[in-house]
């Protein structure tokens, strides 16, 4: 059977008009790559670029708010910046940098050579990148005239660069986001941009799910997968089920704005609250999409740096799945003051409380992991412990939101801003930095500097608490969200000043990190192959990872299989390093570094890039469909996208080769059926 398939492929390859690109280095190799590691790195660098953009936006906001009645930004600029800060940090930083981790690590951790659909992986990156460019192009092309009341336009706004970016809040609440109250194109950039980003995430979600379910190493049952892989699976499922909801909502809003439908227009019987239900039905799972990858990361690092197995592995896994499942039943806690019925408020308050239970289980198990361990306080461990400490604070303030009447006071104030930054900055970003320090040697072959790393950690940790700690009080003392000025008489100036100072301390920390990165990448200490004495499969390979990942597809007999090859236990249950451990590691690394046959890898392709580009051009065409250049743009974009897809479909599955021999699938039958290019059958 497999042989027939292979023959067909060879035939097909010989009759194809064009060849696939073969470059492995240089600019075009990045454009055409289908290698999950290169794609992961592109995700990482792009996300980090947007992190800097979002960070600068945050600093501008904080300069404006450093004192009462600030005059640094105009109202239009401020509204644009707080919107873009959120959109950037959520959709263009935390999600894609999580995707960077998934892309780079997932195949390595499950013992696979790539993801199930390598070109789909590439296309999701390019769509994401062009989506990000699309949103940011509003800086140049966006327009934001004032709302129209009756037939009188509001007072003119001075045009400015920052005043032309989307300014509706990332939640894009109707009817303020509608054509009447937000004329101009800036909101269209957000709405269509998020739609594009959603397509990218949906594609990669499907890819990760298929990869995890089908391409695990032999012997790696579901409950032998690293927790990070589990959390990837959970996040991918969350994306799969939540993105269609926001896609529909965004389509409805697009049609309201551009084509005159009335879904959310109250005067015509539409329902603005419907938007909120749809948005948060996506938006709350989205919160777990942002935090679960970080939870997966620290579930890997805490055991390694405590030299103990993860405490309660099944509990941590099931808690993660439970959080995701419950996450679909709590959305209306974002709407406790929106006038939804009292019984609904009670129900959503209770369901929200239940989320604290699996979250607590995770935290206690992490504590159990560290307890009694042999704790190495290096930078990745500091970030992991920081994650736990800060996430606890965010979790506790989260419970106070579930106390519905309390939430009536808290909602729409800085108390909420404090809460979700403890979860998303103290949580997600600290976890992601733990991952960056932890896996940097795997990716680059060098260690990320410890001295600067610890400085980075302490600056971020102190800065973060200085920034977001006082916000709890500020909020309940009357600091309303999304206001570009606050009155001096409200007595909030001192607290806000501290917050602004804290924001700059964080910025300093990030600067130290960037210097550390640049320095370590060039001159860092060369990394040993297993620098952390780790537990998972990616450390059985040379660093940096070879293009083909595993020369020998691994077989796994337990959770943390690599660890148990190195360590046994004495009669007390203490870890004992086996005498042959060093030899085992060296052998594994050597074997994986020296393939004894040519390994077949997914061939690069030009077309994912053009699919992404085409989709962006389509979005411009839709937005400007009433302008003379709109329809031509639309047609060009459609032609690009469809053309690239057809070319994609007809390009040879692999490079032409003159070998009619095929070994058939080896030890991963599912893997072979999913993506023939993955097996190393066609030896050349």
């Amino acid at each position, binding site marked *: 059977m497999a042989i027939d398939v292979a023959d067909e492929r060879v035939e097909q390859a010989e009759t194809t008009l064009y060849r696939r690109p073969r470059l492995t280095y240089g600019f075009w190799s990045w454009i055409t790559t289908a290698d999950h590691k290169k794609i992961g790195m592109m995700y990482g660098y792009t996300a980090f670029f947007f992190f800097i953009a979002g960070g600068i936006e945050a600093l501008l906001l904080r300069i404006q708010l450093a004192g009462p009645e600030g005059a640094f930004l105009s109202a239009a600029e401020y509204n644009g910046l707080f919107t873009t800060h959120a959109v950037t940090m959520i959709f263009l930083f935390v999600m894609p940098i999580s995707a960077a981790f998934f892309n780079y690590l997932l195949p390595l951790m499950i013992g696979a050579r790539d993801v199930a659909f390598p070109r789909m992986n590439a296309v999701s990156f390019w769509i994401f990148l062009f989506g990000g460019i699309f949103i940011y192009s509003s800086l140049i092309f966006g327009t934001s005239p004032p709302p129209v*009341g009756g037939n009188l336009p509001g007072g003119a706004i001075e045009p400015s660069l920052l005043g032309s970016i989307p300014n509706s809040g990332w939640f894009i609440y109707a009817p303020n986001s509608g054509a009447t109250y937000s004329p101009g194109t800036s909101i269209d950039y957000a709405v269509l941009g998020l739609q594009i980003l959603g397509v990218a995430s949906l594609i990669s979600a499907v890819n990760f799910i298929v990869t995890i379910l089908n391409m695990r190493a032999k012997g790696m049952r579901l409950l032998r997968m690293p927790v990070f892989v589990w959390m990837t699976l959970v996040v991918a499922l969350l994306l799969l089920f939540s993105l269609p909801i926001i896609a529909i909502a965004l389509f409805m809003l697009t049609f309201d704005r551009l084509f005159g439908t009335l879904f959310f227009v109250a005067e015509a019987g539409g329902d*603005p*609250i419907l938007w909120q239900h749809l948005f948060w039905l996506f938006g709350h799972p989205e919160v777990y999409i942002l935090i679960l990858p970080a939870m997966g990361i620290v579930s890997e690092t805490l055991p390694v740096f405590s030299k103990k197995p993860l405490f309660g592995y099944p*509990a941590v896994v099931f808690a993660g799945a439970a959080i995701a499942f419950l996450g679909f039943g709590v959305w209306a806690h974002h709407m406790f003051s929106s006038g939804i019925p009292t019984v609904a408020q009670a129900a959503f308050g209770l369901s929200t409380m239940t989320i604290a239970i699996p979250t607590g289980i995770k935290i206690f198990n992490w504590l159990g992991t560290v307890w009694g361990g*042999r704790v190495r306080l290096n930078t990745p461990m500091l970030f992991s412990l920081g994650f736990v*400490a800060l996430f606890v604070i965010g979790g506790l303030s989260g419970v106070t939101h579930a106390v519905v009447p309390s939430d009536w006071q808290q909602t729409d104030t800085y108390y909420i801003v404090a809460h979700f930054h403890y979860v998303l900055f103290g949580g997600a970003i600290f976890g992601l930095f733990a991952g960056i320090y932890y896996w940097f040697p795997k990716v680059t072959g060098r260690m990320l500097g410890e001295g600067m790393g610890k400085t980075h950690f302490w600056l971020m940790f102190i800065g973060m608490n200085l920034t977001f700690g006082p916000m709890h*009080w500020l909020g309940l003392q009357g600091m309303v969200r999304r206001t570009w000025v606050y*009155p001096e008489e*409200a007595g909030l100036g001192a607290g806000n000043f501290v917050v602004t100072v804290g924001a700059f301390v964080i910025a300093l920390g990030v600067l130290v990190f960037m210097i550390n990165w640049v320095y370590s990448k060039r001159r860092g200490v060369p990394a040993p192959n297993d620098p952390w004495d780790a537990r998972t499969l990616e450390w059985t390979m040379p660093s940096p990872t070879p293009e083909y990942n595993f020369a020998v597809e691994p077989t796994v007999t337990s959770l943390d299989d690599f660890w148990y090859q190195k360590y046994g236990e004495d009669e007390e249950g203490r870890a004992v390093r086996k005498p042959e451990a060093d030899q085992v590691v060296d052998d594994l690394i050597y074997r994986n570094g020296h393939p004894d046959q040519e390994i077949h890898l997914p061939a690069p392709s030009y077309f994912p890039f053009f699919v992404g580009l085409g989709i962006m051009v389509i979005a411009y065409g839709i937005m400007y469909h009433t302008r003379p250049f709109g329809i031509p743009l639309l047609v060009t974009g459609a032609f690009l996208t469809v053309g690239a897809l057809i070319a994609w479909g007809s390009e040879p599955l692999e490079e032409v080769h003159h070998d009619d021999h095929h070994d058939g699938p080896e030890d991963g039958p599912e893997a072979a059926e999913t993506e023939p290019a993955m097996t190393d059958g066609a030896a050349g």
Partner: protein
Amino acid sequence: MNRPRRSDLPLFKRLPLLLLAVGLLGSCGRVEQPLNSFDSQGPIAERINDLFWPVFWGATVIFVLVQGALLLAVFLFRERKGKERPEPKQIAGNTRLELIWTVVPTLILAAIAVPTITTLFDLAECPAGAMEIEVIGHQWWFEFRYPDSGVVTANVMVIPEDTEVCAKMTSDDVLHNFWIPKLAGKRYLVPGQETEQRLYAEQPGEYWGHCAEFCGLSHARMRARVEAMTQADFEAWTTEQLMPAATPAPGSEAERGQEIFLAGTCVGCHIIDGVNNPDPETLTVPAPDLTHFASRSVFAGATLPAQLSPTDADWEAGLRLWLTDPPTWKPGSFMPELGLTADEIDALVAYLSSLE
């Protein structure tokens, strides 16, 4: 001269201390904070605080326990130079512990859930017999209508003390959110729908409020005031509000102001009862009724005058600032820059301050 010199501490060590001091000062409410929700001035806000504080202290205990355990674990089990720790026991879990830290939080949450639900049902809906006031949200000001008496006013909601008030709210344009922190929580104003907010002030006084939902460009300039007064004062206020506007003395500056009002763009949107009585439907944009403008302590979306206890001079200065260039103070404002001369503004201020 022997006292220890603080400045011996290097700056980088002093700075965090200083910041902490500033932070505590800012956070402890030593300055007056008219929007402070902790300072409840009525039973509704108080019950919310009564619910919040036990949860807060409970959370604080959990915070201390969890962070303490984390710090203790790091302190006890960390590796130090020269003090190698033995290889740890490889413990992969403990079912009893898992059960404990599943069941105990569940019980704690159940204990929180009971008062949450009872308070929620007690506060969420207006009780029968409450005094109704209609609240209508506009970009960017609140309008208040009293269905019992027919009074229409803006920015300042006047209520009698010790009375259960039910705000029946809707919006004329986008979402708004009516928040008087010292009296109650928040509730949206939704176009095409009616929502309810209970309010109850125990003492006469002025309570600050703010629109809490992002409502477009000048969201920050959409505030509100609730003025609670004794029952007698409230009745007197109602009677006054129902009278037509005061007529300026002939030849006075105020009369000149009235002429400017009638001749200019003002009448396109504003009504002064007894001076211009157009059908409200014919107005270009809904704007505050100015019949008893001077009876209100604040205007311009309750943002001016900005002072905590403004004097008459502050009030007039605020009005001057507002009339000079509304869209600069309130970007996107539907009240345009009127191009008035200083002299015309003086006349308008004189007229508007006469509208008691």
